């Protein structure tokens, strides 16, 4: 039943032009595509996409405000990459992934420049310091805030990113069974990102009410962080869904919490119609459960770590 719905990709082109009739921009359709490329079913649910959009939006606004505070501390006029890097300093893995992304961006523009003759001239026009611009910014900044030397050690460190690896393996598994047409659609979905729709993204974020606004590189990083948030959500939701599936011989089945069973039961009731299709797509309940678990500080020290949380919001992306 979901499979007969029109492809989200084709609908995006027609609907994005009709957008803006009073309602603010919505990324629901793009998110459906993105979730498909990240491991969800071929036609992700609209409700899930709306929920994800809501979560990402909230988190980004909060992130922006914290970045603005940091920026004010610095005495700068715009939010720049340094502020966002500063916010991410606690989580080395995510920071490393962000740095890799920035370096890749530099590298890709360097290569594409060499191929396109026009680009070569354009680049010659702009300052020659464009090469590895992002890398330089990142390195300089981390150098300045690094007290213990562990941040700079990240540059030399060549560990494999487990989460990235897992995502790659999942994508590989997904594409193995596809035929050429499906694969082409999958690739198109994978290419979709917030940075591609930069202007729409900027409108969606709506920084007009803020005093300090982000600059170009900061917007790039924000688009990346938005994508990372979606990716994390899908990762976690898939884990939750896997947990929910009743497994024979699971030793912890008696220890599942009550709320968990409630979610499970609601899923069961709606599963009466077309269990096949439903079980493939990620449900909003999965997402909510994932958020709950992520935000909930589990462990012996959790009651005493409330000071660690700044605004009561734990960011998925940093």
């Amino acid at each position, binding site marked *: 039943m979901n499979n007969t719905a029109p492809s989200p990709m084709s609908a995006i082109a027609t609907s994005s032009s009709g957008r803006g009739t009073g309602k603010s921009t919505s990324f629901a359709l793009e998110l459906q595509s993105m979730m498909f*490329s990240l491991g969800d079913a071929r036609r992700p649910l609209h409700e899930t996409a709306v929920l994800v959009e809501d979560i990402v939006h909230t988190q980004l606004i909060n992130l922006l405000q914290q970045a603005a505070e940091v920026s004010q501390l610095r005495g700068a006029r715009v939010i720049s990459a340094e502020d966002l890097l500063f916010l991410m300093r606690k989580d080395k893995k995510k920071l490393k992934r962000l740095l890799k*992304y920035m370096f*890749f*961006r530099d*590298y*890709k523009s360097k*290569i*594409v420049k*060499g*191929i396109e*003759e026009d680009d*070569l*001239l354009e680049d*010659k*026009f702009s300052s020659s310091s464009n090469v590895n611009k992002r890398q330089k910014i990142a390195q300089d900044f981390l150098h300045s805030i690094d007290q213990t030397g562990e941040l700079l050690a990240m540059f030399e460190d060549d560990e*494999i990113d487990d989460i990235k690896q897992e995502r*790659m*393996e999942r*994508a*590989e598994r*997904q*594409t*193995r069974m*596809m*035929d*050429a047409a499906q*694969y*082409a659609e999958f*690739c198109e979905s*994978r*290419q*979709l*990102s917030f*940075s*591609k729709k930069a202007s729409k993204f900027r409108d969606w974020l709506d920084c007009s009410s803020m005093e300090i606004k982000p600059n170009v590189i900061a917007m790039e990083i924000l688009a990346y962080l938005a*994508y990372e948030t979606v990716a994390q959500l899908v990762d976690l939701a898939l884990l939750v869904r896997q947990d929910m599936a009743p497994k024979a011989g699971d030793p912890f089945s008696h220890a599942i919490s009550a709320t968990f069973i409630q979610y499970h039961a609601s899923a069961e009731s709606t599963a009466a119609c077309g269990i096949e299709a439903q079980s493939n797509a990620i449900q909003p309940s999965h997402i909510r459960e994932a958020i709950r678990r992520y935000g909930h500080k589990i462990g012996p020290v959790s009651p005493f770590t409330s000071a660690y949380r700044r605004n009561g919001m734990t960011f998925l992306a940093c």
Partner: protein
Amino acid sequence: MEEEPYLEIYLDRCMNQDELASTSSHLFSPIVPYDSYLHTSSNQETIASPLEPSKEPSTDLSSVDLSFLPDELNQENTEQTLTEGKPGVEGNHEIQGAPSRVQSLNEKDSGGICTDDFSLSNSGLNPLSDGNSTLPSPENSSSGFFPLTSMTPLMPVTPVSEGSGIVPQLQNIVSTVNLACKLDLKKIALQAKNAEYNPKRFAAVIMRIREPRTTALIFSSGKMVCTGAKSEELSRLAARKFARVVQKLGFPARFLDFKIQNMVGSCDMRFPIRLESLALTHQQFSSYEPELFPGLIYRMVKPRIVLLIFVSGKVVLTGAKERSEIYEAFENIYPILKGFKKA
């Protein structure tokens, strides 16, 4: 003596070949004869034509003291040049090193001036043959190969491999050359026809010519970058044309250190490729971020080439300084990509 003027002419010709050879010898690969060599071999033909008795002395050479070389090398040589080699480049070099001397004697004689010496007298022969045997040796590695290509087919031969059958096409060549004189960019921009100069934006004149369709960035120091040509010879030709334009405007432009900096090639595998699997299996070489760029960036170590591989099967190879690197890189990646064909 009578041989002196001929010797001088011969030496002049060798020096001209040297100039070409020293700059283009690095382009040479026995696997693929280039169009460039057609020009030089045709040069030789034009020089040869006025000297009629060109074909006969090949038999007269039996009188020349070639006892240091085994006889069969003469015939072997021709077979070797026709059966274009596999990546046993070094082997070919070795084998062709010796007979090329013989061949150069043959060809140069048939091409030229030395034939007259042979017909002159035997006494004149020996010093000249000595001259011949010593002269070709410095050029042995480079211009010694020139005569060989006149016997090879005039079409570029595809490198023989296990059925790749696809030859990457060169799309763009970036080269630099030093005109070795300070230039007044404003004067060039005002007087030259297809020149733009915007000192506030960028400190160089951008000049374009239509044939070959290329663009040059000319700096006031005299250095020039030439882009857009589709082959090494065309790039060199275009650079020469730009240099001539500058020369005609009154600057003492020269043509020093012409060097090819980058070559870009592209080809089509004609089947879709599973990039996710490739990125997973060849992690150390691949970077695949479809949100940023639809192609997979594959950094090959040997030869040091960057390949952009797309889902459609199109492959772009860049970062090469020589044509052979592009071909080699493609031959390396072909079996890998075949393994990741999307059924």
